[in-house]
C-alpha cells in the first residue's frame, strides 16, 4: 500500500484542477463543494489505508519510488515519498481535520455565492500540498511544498481581498514566514554542500551525519529550525498568525491551527536525527518554544477577538510542542528516551483536534452573530446548544482536565521538560514557564467561553444554531478531542509508536503497559501541580467572567494597567515590525530610489548634458568670420609646431 501513498495528494489536486478549470455551468453542487469533499474523502481513505500499513509496522524510508527533479554535474535531486510513524501522525491530522473542515465549509461558505469556487479550489490545493509536505522524502521537496502551503495560506487569508486588513494580513503572513523560509533554505543548502544530497535517507544515515562539521551542523539545524519559527509562528516571528485570522474561520481552523502551522513542528521532529547532533540547537529550540508559549498566552489573556484568542492560544500550544521537542532532544541525547519527542507529537495530534474544534465552534458563533468581538456576544449558550457544548469540550481539553485529550499530552510535555532539567537546569525555568502557561491557558479559554456563551447578550443579534453540515463535524471533532488522548493506552501506546520513527537514535526504548502509564502519570506529584493550576485558572475565569459584579477595572491601574496596555498592544512586537517595515525598509528604499534617479542616472544624464553643452560651446566659436577660421589654422599650426618640436622629443611614448 505504501508505494501508492503518492496518490494521496493527487486526489485533492485533481479536485483542485476540476474546480478551478471546469466551466461554470458544468460545475454543480454549490460551486465545487462536491468535488472538494470527494477529493478530501478520497485522500482520507487512502491515508487511512497507509496509516493502517504503518500501524502494522511497515514503513517506507528511502526505498520508495523516485522521480528525478533535476541533474546538474554530479548532483541529482530526486523526489520520492517517505512514510514512517511521524508521517502517519501528520496524515491522521491532515486527513481528519481536512475532511471535516471541507464538510463544515459546505455550510459555512454558503453565503459566499460568487467566491465559493475559489475557496474550494484553494482549500483543495492546500490539502494537496499539505499531504505533499508530509510525505516528502527530502528537504528540498519538503521546502517546495512548504512554500506552497504558505502560498495557499496567503491566498486564503486574503480570501476577502477587498478588505484592506485581509489583504494586508495575507501579505504579512507570507513575508514573515518567508523570513523563516530563507533560513530553512540556507539550512538545507548547508547540508546539501556537505552531504551532497537532500534525501532524508542520506542525511540521517551515519555517513550523512558524520559528513557535516559540528559548527555547520549547529548552524544548519538552527537555520532549519528558523523555518519552523516562521511557519509555526514561534517568537519572534509569531505575529503573523493573529493577523491571519482575517481569513475565513474554516481556514483558520484547518491551516492556522491544525495543519500548516504544525509543519514547523513536524519539520523539527523530522530533523531530529540532525538536531540530536547539535544539543546547542536543541536548547535554542526549547527556549524559543518556552518563550513563545508564555508570551502568546499572556496576550491571549486580554484579547477580545474570539479568533485572536484562539490564534494566540495556537501559538502558545505550538510553543509547547517546540519546547517538548527541545527537551525531548535532550532526553534522547542524555537519557536515551523518546519521551519528549513523542509527547510533542502527541500534543500535536491532540491539539489539532481540539483547536480545530474550537475554531470551528468559533466559526459557528461568528456565522451566527456576525462579529468576532467577544464583548458584543454573551448568552449564546441557550441559542446554540451544540456549539456551546462542543466548544466547552474543546476548552476543557485544551485546559488539561482529565480525561480529555489535552490533559494527557500536556502532562507528558511538562514531564519531559522537567526531566530534561536534570541535564540542563535551564529546563527547570522553562518548566515553570510551561506551568504558568498552563494556568493562563485554562483561564483565557474559559474567559472566552464565558464571555461568549454565558450571561446575557451584550448586543443586538439573532443567533441561531448552525446547520447540520456544520454541527456534525463539530460533534465528530468534539468526540475526538475527548478521546484522542486514549491512544496513549492502545497497543504499545502512542509513545512507542511515535518513538519508532527515531528509534535508531536511542537505545532504551522500553514499552510501558497502559496501567504503568496511568500509575506513572498519577503517581507523579507534578501532575497535580499542573492539574491544580488548570482548575484554578478555570475557577478564576468563572469568578471574573461568569459571576456578575466583578470589577475588572482594578487591573487597569498602576503597574498592572501598564502591563495590560502592553498585552493589548501585543507586547508592541507587531508595531515594531510595522515601524521597521515602513520606516526603515521603505524609507531605505525611497532613499535608494532617489539615489538611483539622481546620482546614478544623474551621472548618465550628466554625460549627455556635458556632450550637448560642450557641443554648444564649441559651436559658438564658429562665428562666421572667415578670418577667424584662418587665424585658427595659424594657431593650430603653431601649437602643432610646438608640440612636435618640443613635446614629442621629450615625451616617452
Amino acid at each position, binding site marked *: 500500500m505504501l508505494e501508492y501513498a503518492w496518490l494521496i495528494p493527487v486526489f485533492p489536486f485533481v479536485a483542485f484542477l476540476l474546480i478551478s478549470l471546469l466551466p461554470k455551468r458544468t460545475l454543480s453542487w454549490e460551486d465545487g463543494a462536491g468535488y472538494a469533499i470527494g477529493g478530501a474523502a478520497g485522500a482520507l481513505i487512502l491515508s487511512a489505508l497507509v496509516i493502517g500499513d504503518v500501524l502494522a509496522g511497515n514503513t517506507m524510508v528511502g526505498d520508495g519510488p523516485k522521480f528525478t527533479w533535476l541533474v546538474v554535474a554530479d548532483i541529482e535531486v530526486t523526489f520520492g515519498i517517505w512514510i514512517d510513524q511521524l508521517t502517519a501522525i501528520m496524515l491522521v491530522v491532515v486527513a481528519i481535520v481536512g475532511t471535516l473542515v471541507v464538510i463544515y465549509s459546505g455550510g459555512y461558505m454558503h453565503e459566499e455565492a460568487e467566491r465559493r469556487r475559489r475557496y474550494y479550489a484553494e482549500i483543495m490545493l492546500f490539502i494537496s500540498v499539505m499531504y505533499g509536505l508530509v510525505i516528502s522524502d527530502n528537504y528540498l521537496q519538503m521546502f*517546495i511544498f512548504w512554500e506552497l502551503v504558505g502560498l495557499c495560506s496567503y491566498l486564503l487569508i486574503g480570501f476577502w481581498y*477587498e478588505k484592506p486588513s485581509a489583504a494586508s494580513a495575507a501579505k504579512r503572513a507570507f513575508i514573515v514566514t518567508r523570513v523563516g523560509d530563507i533560513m530553512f533554505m540556507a539550512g538545507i543548502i548547508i547540508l546539501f554542500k556537505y552531504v551532497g544530497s537532500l534525501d532524508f535517507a542520506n542525511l540521517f544515515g551515519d555517513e550523512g551525519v558524520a559528513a557535516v562539521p559540528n559548527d555547520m551542523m549547529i548552524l544548519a539545524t538552527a537555520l532549519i529550525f528558523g523555518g519552523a519559527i516562521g511557519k509555526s509562528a514561534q517568537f519572534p516571528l509569531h505575529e503573523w498568525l493573529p493577523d491571519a485570522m482575517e481569513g475565513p474561520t474554516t481556514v483558520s481552523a484547518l491551516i492556522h491551527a491544525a495543519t500548516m502551522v504544525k509543519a514547523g513542528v513536524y519539520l523539527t521532529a523530522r530533523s531530529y536525527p540532525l538536531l540530536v547532533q547539535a544539543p546547542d540547537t536543541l536548547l535554542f529550540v526549547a527556549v524559543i518554544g518556552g518563550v513563545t508559549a508564555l508570551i502568546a498566552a499572556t496576550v491571549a489573556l486580554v484579547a477580545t477577538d474570539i479568533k485572536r484568542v484562539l490564534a494566540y492560544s495556537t501559538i502558545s500550544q505550538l510553543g509547547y510542542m517546540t519546547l517538548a521537542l527541545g527537551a525531548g532532544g535532550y532526553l534522547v541525547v542524555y537519557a536515551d528516551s523518546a519521551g519528549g519527542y513523542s509527547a510533542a507529537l502527541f500534543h500535536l495530534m491532540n491539539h489539532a483536534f481540539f483547536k480545530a474544534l474550537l475554531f470551528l465552534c468559533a466559526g459557528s458563533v461568528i456565522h451566527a452573530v456576525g462579529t468576532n468581538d467577544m464583548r458584543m456576544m454573551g448568552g449564546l449558550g441557550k441559542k446554540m446548544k451544540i456549539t456551546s457544548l462542543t466548544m466547552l469540550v474543546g476548552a476543557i481539553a485544551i485546559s488539561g482536565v482529565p480525561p480529555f485529550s489535552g490533559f494527557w499530552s500536556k502532562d507528558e510535555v511538562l514531564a519531559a521538560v522537567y526531566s530534561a532539567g536534570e541535564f540542563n537546569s535551564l529546563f527547570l525555568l522553562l518548566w515553570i514557564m510551561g506551568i504558568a502557561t498552563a494556568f493562563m491557558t485554562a483561564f483565557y479559554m474559559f474567559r472566552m467561553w464565558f464571555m461568549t456563551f454565558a450571561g446575557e447578550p451584550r448586543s443586538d443579534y439573532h443567533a441561531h444554531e448552525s446547520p447540520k453540515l456544520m454541527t456534525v463535524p463539530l460533534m465528530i471533532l468534539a468526540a475526538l478531542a475527548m478521546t484522542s488522548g486514549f491512544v496513549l493506552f492502545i497497543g504499545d501506546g502512542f509513545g512507542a509508536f511515535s518513538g519508532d520513527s527515531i528509534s535508531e537514535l536511542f537505545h532504551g526504548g522500553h514499552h510501558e503497559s497502559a496501567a504503568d502509564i496511568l500509575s506513572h502519570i498519577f503517581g507523579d506529584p507534578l501532575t497535580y501541580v499542573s492539574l491544580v493550576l488548570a482548575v484554578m485558572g478555570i475557577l478564576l475565569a468563572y469568578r471574573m467572567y461568569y459571576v456578575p459584579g466583578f470589577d475588572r477595572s482594578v487591573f487597569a491601574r498602576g503597574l498592572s494597567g501598564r502591563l495590560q496596555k502592553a498585552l493589548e498592544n501585543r507586547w508592541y512586537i507587531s508595531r515594531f515590525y510595522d515601524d521597521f517595515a515602513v520606516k526603515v525598509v521603505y524609507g531605505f528604499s525611497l532613499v535608494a530610489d532617489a539615489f538611483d534617479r539622481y546620482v546614478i542616472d544623474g551621472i548618465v544624464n550628466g554625460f549627455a548634458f556635458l556632450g550637448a553643452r560642450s557641443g554648444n560651446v564649441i559651436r559658438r566659436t564658429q562665428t562666421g568670420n572667415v578670418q577667424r577660421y584662418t587665424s585658427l589654422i595659424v594657431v593650430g599650426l603653431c601649437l602643432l609646431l610646438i608640440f612636435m618640436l618640443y613635446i614629442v622629443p621629450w615625451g616617452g611614448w
Partner: protein
Amino acid sequence: MMENIPVLSLTILLPLIGALISFLLGKRGHMAKWVALIFSAAAFILSLALAYEFVVDPSSAAAGEIEGYSNGYQYYESHVWIEAIGINYIVGIDGISLPMFVLTTLLCMLSIIFSWDTDRRPKEYFGLMLILEVGVLGVFVSLDYFMFYVFWEIVLIPMYLMIGIWGGPRKDYAAIKFFIYTHVASLAMLIAIMAMYFEASLGTFSMEAIATQSVDFSRGMQVAIFAAMFFGFGVKLPMVPFHTWLPDAHVEAPTAGSVLLAGLLLKMGGYGLIRVAIPSLPSGAEDMVVVMAVIAVASILYGAVLCLAQNDLKKMVAYSSISHMGFVLLGYATLGELGVVAGVFQMFAHGLVTAVLFMMCGVVQHKCGTRLIDNLGGLAKKMPIAAALMTIGFLASLGLPGLVSFAAEFMVFAAVFFKWGLWIFLPIIAVVVTAAYYLWALQRSMFGPMTEKIDLSHVKDVDWYEGLPVAILIVLIAIFGVFPYLIFSRIGPAVEIALRAFGGG
C-alpha cells in the same frame, strides 16, 4: 526527419521574410498581424521540432550519429562569408542556446498575439518585431564573432523604433537612452572581440577557433579583454550601476516591446557571458570573479530594494528584472557547473516569468489607463482573471517553488554557498524583499477596496489575445517548475564543455 535541412538558418530566415512581406503590404496594413503570426508561428514550430530532435547529451551518443554535429554543437552550419579577414557564417546550437532559441521564437509569437489590437502603423510594428526576432535568434546561434556582433546590433534598431514610435510620454528620452547606452556597451564588446581576434592571430572570427587560442592568452590580456566583454554584456544584463537605461526603456516601451526587451534582450547579455567571455577567457574570468560576484549581489539587492519604492507597476517589474538577472550573474560568478547551469536556467525562467509580468502590466495599462499603483486598487473585483494571472506571475517571479524560477534560484544559492560559504546570507535577503514588493504591489493594486481615483465602470477583464499568451506562459512556467529536469539535462552537458577550461568545472 530534418537531415540536410539548414534548420537554424531557416528559422532565422523565416521572420526576415515575414518582416519584408509585412513592410511591403502597402495599403493592406491590417494583414500585417496575420503575416507576423504565420511567420513567427512557423519559426516557433521549426524551433520546437529542432528542440525535439535535439540530442540531449551529445557526448553519450556516438559522434557520427548526430546529424550536423560539431564539437558540442548540433545543426552546425559553416560557410565562408568574408574571406579577406576570415569572417564565416557559422551557426550551431547546444544546450545553452537551445532554451534561449526556443524561448525567443515562443515569446515573439506570443507578443505578436498579445499585440493583436495594434492598429497604429501595424505594418511597421509587426515588421519590426520580426526583425527583432531575427536579430535575437541570430545572436543565440552565431558561432562567429563578427556575425554575433552584427546580430547583436541588429536588435537595437527595431527596439529603438518600437520604443520611439509606440512608446509612452517620455519615449524620446527613453528610446535614445536605450539606443546609445547599449550601443556603447556593444562597442566595448566589439573592441574586446577585435583584441581577441588579433591576439589569437588565426585570421578567423570563428568563436571555437579563437577559444582554442584565447585560453592561453597572458593573464593580463585575458583580464583586459574579459573586463571589456563583461562591461559589454553586463550593461545588457543589466548590472548595477549600468542599469538605468532599463527602467526608462521599459516604462516607455509598448507592452510587447517590454516583453521582448526583458524576455530576450537581457538574455543576450547573460548568453554572451557564458557563450563567449567565460569559456574563452578562463584566467580573466577567474580574476574577475570577485567583481562579478559583488556586482551580482549588488544588482540583486539594489534592484529588489528599488522595487519597493516604485509606484509604477511596470517600473517595478523592470527593476525586478535587474534583481533577477543578478542571479544569472551570481551563478556565473561561481564558475562552477552548478552555478552556471543554474544561471542559464534562470535566464530561461526569467524570460518566461517576466513576459507574463509585462503582459499583465500591459493589460492593466490598457484596461485602466494607468499603471500607477496609487491610482489602482481592488481591481480583482473588476477583472478577476487578470488578477489571478497577475498573482501567478508575481508568485512565479518571487521564486515560489513549483514554478520555474525556484529551481534556478535555489541552485544559484547552493552554488554560492559551495563557493563562498556564509556570504550566501547577503543575496538570500533579496528573497524576502522580493516577496515584500510583489505582494505589497499586489495588495495595493489588485486587492483592497476598489479605487475611486480612476473610472472603473468600463473596465473589462482580459481579452482573449491578452489572456491566451499569458495562460500559455503560465502553463510552461508550471511545467518547467515541476520538471526542471527537461531543461537542466540539456544545459548541463553544454556547460560542462563551456567550463572545460576551468579544469572539470
